[in-house]
């Protein structure tokens, strides 16, 4: 079932970790960082001088919970998908607290072997204590 060499019970052990949180981190949204991010994605919209473009929050560096078991499965990581929910704008100068937790872990049979899916939910909370952006990211071990 699992890829060759993956120890049995990895998925079961990971499922006991659902809800586990990574270390919370705090970041100020810096104008220079937003500018470099916009240059990197090739989006020159002048709006992004004041406001962060929609996917910028991922650059704030969420600390996902440590899951050493996941590394026992497969050879490397793939990105499965991301879902962003926008509740408040993120502006240059905002202070954002980032916290990430494991919300799901499951295995799927793929065309070229089995895959382990880990789903993380990350909340970006602004200086007013309100969630500005919520991101649900699916990461795959294969």
């Amino acid at each position, binding site marked *: 079932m699992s890829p060759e060499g993956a120890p049995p019970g990895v998925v079961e052990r990971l499922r006991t970790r659902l809800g586990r949180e990574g270390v919370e981190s705090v970041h100020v949204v810096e104008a220079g*960082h937003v500018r*470099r*991010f916009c*240059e*990197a*994605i*090739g*989006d020159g*919209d002048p*709006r992004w001088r004041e406001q962060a*473009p*929609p*996917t910028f929050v*991922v*650059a704030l*560096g969420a600390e996902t919970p440590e899951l050493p078991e996941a590394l026992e499965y497969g*050879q*490397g*990581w*793939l*990105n*499965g*998908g*991301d*879902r*962003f*929910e*926008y509740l408040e704008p993120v502006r240059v100068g905002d202070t954002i607290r980032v916290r990430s937790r494991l919300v799901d872990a499951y295995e799927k049979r793929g065309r070229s072997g089995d895959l382990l899916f880990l789903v993380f939910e990350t909340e970006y909370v602004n200086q007013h204590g309100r969630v500005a952006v919520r991101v649900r990211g699916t990461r795959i071990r294969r």
Partner: protein
Amino acid sequence: MSGPELRPGLELPELVKHPTTRQLVQYAGASGDFYEIHYDQEFARSAGLPGVVLHGLLKAAFLAQVVTSWAGERGRLTGLEVSYRGLDLPGRPLRCRGVVKAVEGERVELELWTEDPEGRRTTVGGATLELRGLGRDRPEEDEAWPPSSTT
């Protein structure tokens, strides 16, 4: 100025991106994603890939740009969802496209995707927007989209 009606089937102006290895390094630095499959050819091949590949989240950023550059200040992005279905390599043009799926009151649903030179949809997803200043008192069928701000 008159433009296309805001209704299901309306295609958003497409963006064609020309990602380079330089851009992948820029994105790695700006995003903090230093996974080597995005800039180290040898590492990428040893991981079973044809070479370095685009970050999924870079493609998400491209698709977000399709939406925000089209809607401007007239719509607030409330949701964006993407699934990474296929790998994209630098040096190959990537078409970033979108189409209106539904319009319900002030809520607009969009379908989004990236398309490689073979026409494969390598990223699929969607977005939701909340329109600003397009209330019920202004009949939607008379609205050009995006509304012209210069006339």
